[in-house]
């Protein structure tokens, strides 16, 4: 044992899968494509598990953080040194376990879900590509390598959202995701430049060390850097005001929504804030902005989720809302709680999406909740696993969501001041979350079927297996971390906030959170089980509020009016007509005209007469000779020749 964990294999194995399936997949038999696509993440997961043993004290302990760098620098320009370095510490370990573990489960599920699709090999190539970039993002030891992964997952996301690119809406959704993410990435990039300008390095450990060496350094450029990074995080993690791409991203295949747009990629923003927590810790202002953005997003998205009728869109707004929760956690410096919630959310939200996918699969592509109902008996496994997830996200004891949500809310409350406000917002969001999840549960699975002509069938075991495993994790996932998670992550994310100590306050807050969840369930029960006609009555009673929610606060329309339309007009009238047609087109026309005119004159020179060519040749030789012997005279002669040529 030479002590190496071979971290480089973790991203490279899925990349190999991408290369093989991406280049040869079309010709390979389907079984082989599946084998390659599934084995590479499994292998990566095994390596991560092997590395995890050392962290948990049951294997040879590595030095933590464990760093693996290529011997040759990536960029070596002046004072700037950037290495290809991978860092494994507690934070990246947790992320890697989620990404490769949940990722592998979703790969299995996809093999069943996508079995009858044409671009089967293409789908798995993209999925492996995503895992490659995501693991690079998480393992990166410096911000620039992280940015590579950051952009890469955006690319994979774009490709997978637009997987059914023949459908205009899917292609448009892919473009929307990509373009909105550009805005965020721009912020990230500016943040990188700021970092470089003020620290001279992009390596996380060096930046951290420089901050530790200057304990008095709080203001100045630090809030600016933190806010720029926040813009990047808000883009990737679908926070206000850049969340608009995520609901549309549901155009992609459902396993993609589960893996990329619920469990892993969208949490990259949270991970990034936790990774650069030393910057946010020094800037209370930026931290408050994070908390406010998170709380606002959580509440905002949850209210939209109340009235959505597309099963995947409900889950999409729920994801945005839960991501807001994580940001809220980061904003009160409860990084470990945020990462804890990230983990449990990965379990239950992946499960929710996969179960929803199972429902959609069973109903032959139907996504409208109003046409479902009574699926409990037809899809028992899907129903029970989904129930676990619903209880987990609603925050019932002892499901996973309870512990992580509780950790965030407790830390927020004990902060006081702004913390109390975001705690209250979080509590209201918990109520709404519980309500809309149980609404979905009632509409899809309970009651009677509202559509006569559908004949649902339970999904194959390749899809149900991952559901069962994730259901177990959704139930038990919280027990792993309760009370221990903060201490485990402390070396990586710091211990600015005291870990939740057990006490009366915590108990009261927990009971309050569970009570709120129960209240949400109760309301959903009254509205959708006992009085199924009451939601319509309620909507009719408050038409204004209902319309605003159904139209998602008209944000898409506002963006369309304020940004998209003016940009299109600018492109059409200024860029196309003035710049393209008038300036560039005119210049091209002018140059072409000059060339044509010159050609018309010069072509007379080409007489076809051999002796005339020979004469020119001789004259040229004579001119060269003259130039060698008498340079000044040759210039005068050249002028004469020029005049003679034009006259010719």
């Amino acid at each position, binding site marked *: 044992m030479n002590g190496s964990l071979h971290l480089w294999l973790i991203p490279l194995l899925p990349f190999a899968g991408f290369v093989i399936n991406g280049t040869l997949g079309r010709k390979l038999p389907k079984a082989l494509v599946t084998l390659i696509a599934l084995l590479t993440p499994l292998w990566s997961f095994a390596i991560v598990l092997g590395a995890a043993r050392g962290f948990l004290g049951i294997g040879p302990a590595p030095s933590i953080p464990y760093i693996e760098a290529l011997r040759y620098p990536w960029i070596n320009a002046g004072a700037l040194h950037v290495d290809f370095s991978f860092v494994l510490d507690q934070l990246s370990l947790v992320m890697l376990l989620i990404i490769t573990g949940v990722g592998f489960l979703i790969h299995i599920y996809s093999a069943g879900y996508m079995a009858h699709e044409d671009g089967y090999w293409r789908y798995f190539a993209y999925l492996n590509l995503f895992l490659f970039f995501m693991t690079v993002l998480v393992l990166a030891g410096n911000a620039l390598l992280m940015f590579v992964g950051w952009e890469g997952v955006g690319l994979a996301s774009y490709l997978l959202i637009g997987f059914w690119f023949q459908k205009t809406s899917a292609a448009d959704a892919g473009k929307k995701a990509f373009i909105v993410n550009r805005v965020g990435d721009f912020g990230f990039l500016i943040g990188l430049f700021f970092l470089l300008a003020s620290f001279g390095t992009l390596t996380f450990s060096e930046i951290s060390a420089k901050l530790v060496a200057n304990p008095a350094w709080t203001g100045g450029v630090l809030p600016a850097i933190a806010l720029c990074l926040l813009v990047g995080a808000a883009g990737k993690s679908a926070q206000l005001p850049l969340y608009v791409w995520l609901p549309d991203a549901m155009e992609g295949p459902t396993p993609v929504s589960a893996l990329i747009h619920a469990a892993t990629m969208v949490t990259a923003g949270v991970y990034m804030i936790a990774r650069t927590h030393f910057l946010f810790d020094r800037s209370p202002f930026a931290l408050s902005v994070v908390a406010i953005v998170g709380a606002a997003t959580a509440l905002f998205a949850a209210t939209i989720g109340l009235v959505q009728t597309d099963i995947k869109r409900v889950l999409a707004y729920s994801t945005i809302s839960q991501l807001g929760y994580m940001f809220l956690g980061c904003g009160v410096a409860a990084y470990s709680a945020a990462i804890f919630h990230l983990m449990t959310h990965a379990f239950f939200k992946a499960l929710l999406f996969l179960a929803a996918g199972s429902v959609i699969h069973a109903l032959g592509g139907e996504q409208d909740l109003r046409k479902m109902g009574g699926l409990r008996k037809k899809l028992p496994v899907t129903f029970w696993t989904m129930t676990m997830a619903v209880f987990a996200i609603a925050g019932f004891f002892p499901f996973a969501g309870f512990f992580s949500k509780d950790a965030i809310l407790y830390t927020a409350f004990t902060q006081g001041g702004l913390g109390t406000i975001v705690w209250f917002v979080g509590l209201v969001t918990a109520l709404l979350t519980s309500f809309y999840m149980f609404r979905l549960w009632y509409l899809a699975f309970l009651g009677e079927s509202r559509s006569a002509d559908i004949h649902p069938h339970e999904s194959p075991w390749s899809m149900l297996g991952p559901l069962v495993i994730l259901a177990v994790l959704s139930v038990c996932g919280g027990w792993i971390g309760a009370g221990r998670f903060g201490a485990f992550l402390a070396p990586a994310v710091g211990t600015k906030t005291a870990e939740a100590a057990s006490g009366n306050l915590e108990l009261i807050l927990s009971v309050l959170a569970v009570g709120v969840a129960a209240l949400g369930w109760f309301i959903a029960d009254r509205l959708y089980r006992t009085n199924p006609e009451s939601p319509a009555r309620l909507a009719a009673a408050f038409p204004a509020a209902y319309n605003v929610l159904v139209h998602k606060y008209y944000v898409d329309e506002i963006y369309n009016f304020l940004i998209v339309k003016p940009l299109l007009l600018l492109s059409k009238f200024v860029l196309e007509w003035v710049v393209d047609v008038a300036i560039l087109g005119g210049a091209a026309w002018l140059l072409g005209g000059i060339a044509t005119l010159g050609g018309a004159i010069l072509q007379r020179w080409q007489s076809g007469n051999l002796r005339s060519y020979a*004469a020119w040749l001789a004259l040229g030789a004579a001119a060269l000779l003259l130039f060698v012997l008498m340079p000044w005279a040759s210039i005068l002669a050249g002028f004469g020749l020029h005049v003679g040529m034009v006259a010719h």
Partner: protein
Amino acid sequence: MSSGYVQLLQQDVPLSWYLLLSAVLFSLGIVGFLIKRNLITVFMSIELMLNAVNLSFVTFAHQWHAVKGQIFVFFVMMVAAAEAAVGLAIIIAVFRARATLAVDRIDLMKL
């Protein structure tokens, strides 16, 4: 006998004579190339120019006792032989097609 001839050459004929001869031959070649109408004569003028250059090559090779110049002459002769083969073939092809060898009338290669 042959070494005595070379000695005579070295002593009695100055370098400039060879060069002058070379220049005269070259000029004759140029003039012939420019003014003659028969394609074969034009072709022969080119050979004349090549050989004028060859003459100056050997002259200088002899003067500087450098073998390079003589090697170059062999190169030129080789290229000239190849060129003669190709050139004569073209001339025959042109004559068959046009029944004339007057260069002024072989002028289809113009716009």
